[in-house]
């Protein structure tokens, strides 16, 4: 899966949680999940669980803490997919 495909899959996962349509329209690797996409901080855990289901991976607590932007999410997903 290349980065573009990953981005499309990730967008599908985060969409239900996004509260800023503007932020979602202009989504880039540097988009901050909380500040730009306005995802409720409590919902971050649900986003991560949905990512796990979507990509069939397990994201450990340490990786979870780093997952603050779209780019960091893609990096972590890529790492976990490569470990499979």
């Amino acid at each position, binding site marked *: 899966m290349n980065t573009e495909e990953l981005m499309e899959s990730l967008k599908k996962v985060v969409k239900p*949680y996004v509260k800023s349509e503007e932020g979602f329209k202009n989504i880039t690797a540097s988009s901050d999940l909380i500040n730009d996409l306005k995802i409720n901080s409590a*919902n971050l*855990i*649900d986003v991560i*669980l949905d990512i796990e289901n979507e990509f069939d991976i397990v994201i450990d607590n340490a990786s979870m803490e780093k997952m603050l932007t779209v780019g960091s999410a893609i990096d972590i997903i890529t790492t976990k997919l490569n470990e499979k």
Partner: protein
Amino acid sequence: MQEVNNRVVITGLGVVAPNGVGITDFTNAIKQGISGISYHKELETLGFSCCIGGIPLVPEALQLQYLSALQLKNFNSPGILYGCMAGMDAWKDAGLMINETADWDSGTVFGTGTTSVEKFRESVNKIDAGQVRTLGSNAVLQTMTSGVSAYLSGILGLGNLVTSNSSACCTGTESILMGYERIRSGNAKRMLVGACSDGGPYVWGGFDAMRVMSYKHNDNPEKASRPMSATANGFVPGSGAGALLLESLSSAVERGAKIYGEIAGGALNAGGQRGNGSMTAPNSEAVQRCISKAIENAGVDVNEIDLINGHLTATSKDAEEINNWATVLNRKGKNFPYVHSLKAMTGHCLAAAGAIESVAAVICLANDFIFPSINCEDIHPDIGAIIDAEKIPQRLLENNKLRLIAKASFGFGDINACLIFKKYNG
């Protein structure tokens, strides 16, 4: 704080009942004596003796008018859903807007009997399977007892007292009195009060095991809930939510809000599980004291009570309840007020019962009608010996001026709640 003694009126109503969702449908249903009790295959499959119950019809499209798709994601708490629907309807019915900033003058006491058992079961199963990390963010929000009041506060922007009471089958009636006290004492202008209850096997199972539910009418569900009938054979379980928007009279008048009626007063007490009271049976002395205190607190003439909206669950305790009313009011035979039980149509909605039944009472009060008490064409002889049969309306009585309605609820733990609703005459 000094005693303020504000008058408290009802300016909004909302209901999610087995026989009608929303005030319009519910009003039509109670006028026509429509039962909301149906057969549930799932209960039979699980080996229940009582395979019938009342569950409100709330399709997904309707749910989405109240909660967002995100709120409904991984949502498994029908009680909270019913409570939000009824509460939001009552708020809107009162002509109030969703607050952009916290409304410091508005709060809620919205009760429930159990936490959301379906969500709890889902969570327990995951935890037992070693999957605690997959519970997601909302297992706590949906299983905390105060979940329903927390959801409502967030949706409406309530900035006063936000809490959930729990007192078995008194919960709904108690919430109304708690909100009433809050406004009366000047600590809030508006209180959204009511209660909700989940339905289904995990809530109803314990009652089935106690053999207190009807099991003789599985093939005839609409005839099963028979309060005050000689053939009453246990209660039929229900679920749902009822909500009332209580407001200080001055706030209601200032807003130009429509006023359904006034809360004249009420009382709460317990029998201490002494005398003939126990964990599951009411102490008659306490019931009588509660009704008596409510009347005293309301400062009304017992002869102006035109209607009793009873607790009347369709068990052997119905005759005892009628006797308690007759004793306190000192009114018997043809002199007894009209009396009816909504449970004949909705089943016993447990924690939500008092709230849904109070909504029905306020609708009657505002519109001067008395809904029929269905399924008691064969009045229990012990009740017939105390009051005249015509006092239990078998069909709708319209254009029947109502001055005062007394509403009572009694619950496990030997607890009692009684409210006096009064026609608002300016």
